[in-house]
């Protein structure tokens, strides 16, 4: 057994063919989790009674659950309970017609929302109380203060942490391969089943992941530079 560049390029092609799957998983998860995580952070920041306590408990506990374990459990529940739920809602599709990727999305979004909310909450806490008071003093409502004064200041503070979270999400999408969804790694391994060239397959997958996260990270860094523009102008 030795390294064969021919098998490596076969795997590389397979990996690139499935790059859109990982891309979609990453972007959808990122956008939706950013929205949910932001909402959680704002609710906890304003200490909305009942809901904020519940969310605090939920986020703390859920952060202790590895994504892989969650994914396997949700997949099991999905497999065994789908028929009952579908009958209840009068959905005529059978389980074989449903794409299992929704289980992947569900677990990815749930765990990402929790970790993003912590990042955003950390950034929210760095904004001084005076900023809220200034907003109220000029007659803005709570919501207006949030949208016009707090959130614009939040963006540059939260972005470095969110870039880390984005890289984490890219790596998290790799785990959905455990429930049988073909993404970069699955695509890279497809040619290996015949040639048993698993090293080449995994190396090809690693290369594509590396480039993908490098490109996304570089783009995100550009946004970071842009968002901190106003600070540089003042100084």
């Amino acid at each position: 057994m030795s390294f064969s560049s021919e098998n490596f390029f076969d795997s590389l092609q397979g990996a690139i063919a499935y790059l859109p799957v990982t891309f979609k998983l990453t972007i959808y998860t990122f956008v939706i989790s950013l929205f949910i995580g932001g909402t959680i952070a704002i609710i906890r920041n304003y200490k909305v009674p009942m809901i904020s306590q519940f969310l605090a408990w939920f986020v703390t506990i859920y952060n202790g659950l590895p994504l892989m374990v969650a994914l396997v459990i949700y997949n099991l529940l999905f497999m065994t309970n789908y028929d009952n739920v579908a009958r209840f809602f009068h959905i005529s599709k059978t389980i074989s017609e449903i794409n299992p990727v929704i289980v992947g999305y569900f677990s990815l979004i749930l765990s990402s929302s929790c970790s993003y909310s912590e990042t955003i909450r950390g950034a929210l806490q760095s904004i001084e109380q005076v900023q809220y008071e200034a907003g109220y003093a000029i007659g803005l409502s709570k919501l207006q203060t949030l949208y016009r004064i707090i959130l614009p200041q939040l963006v540059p503070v939260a972005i470095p942490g969110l870039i880390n979270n984005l890289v984490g999400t890219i790596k998290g999408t790799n785990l959905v391969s455990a429930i049988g969804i073909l993404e970069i790694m699955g695509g890279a391994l497809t040619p290996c089943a015949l040639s048993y060239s698993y090293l080449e397959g995994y190396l090809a997958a690693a290369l594509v992941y590396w480039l993908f996260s490098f490109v996304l990270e570089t783009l995100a860094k550009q946004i970071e530079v842009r968002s901190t523009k106003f600070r540089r102008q003042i100084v």
Partner: protein
Amino acid sequence: MGKYFDFERFIDTIPKIIPQLSVTFSIVLVSMIVGTVLAIAVAVLRIQRIPVLHQILGIYISFMRGTPLLVQMMVVYYGLPLLVQGLFGININTWSTIIFVDIAFILNEGAFLGEIFRSAILSIPPIQSEAGYSIGMTRLQTFTRIVLPQTIRIIIPSYGVDLIGVFQNTSLVFTIGGVLDIMGKAKTLGTATGHALEAYLVVALIFIILSLILRFLFFLINQKLQYERR
């Protein structure tokens, strides 16, 4: 088959899974201890900015950060025997799987902890090293006796987050096959009895409780190390 979730079966599964925690802990311990040593070396070498080595370490860190741990693990598992065979002519295919897992985790931690250590070392004011040199300490003495002890307090919070991350990452190890950590045991129990849900729920519970305990421990340590506040 009976009920899908049975509470009694859930309780019965707990004693079967708990012993496998030793495997999980061994991975965490080995990768944290060796990983920390590697990380300090990586951080120091990165700060020294030795021409070629600096770029190589930069690529190493970027690779470890940008690729999923699962893929890294598999690359080590399939690649290392080939590399060692080629370089030294030693066949290590017979080694236990857990050694490859440990190596993958150590390499991963070397990069992540390396970045944590690097920023911590850089945050120590240079005047501290100068003080060390002025009383006649060598560079190594200054680093180990003056700079390194001061970084410990700074890295504790990130170190805790990283440790919990490693602990949770051990849930990936079962995919490689042949390693019976808590997740692997749950999978085997599931295939043997046909009731996987209870076993996985036990694993989830163990992960959550231990993560919370670890978080609380690091919170206490951090509190203890806040000297100025007292």
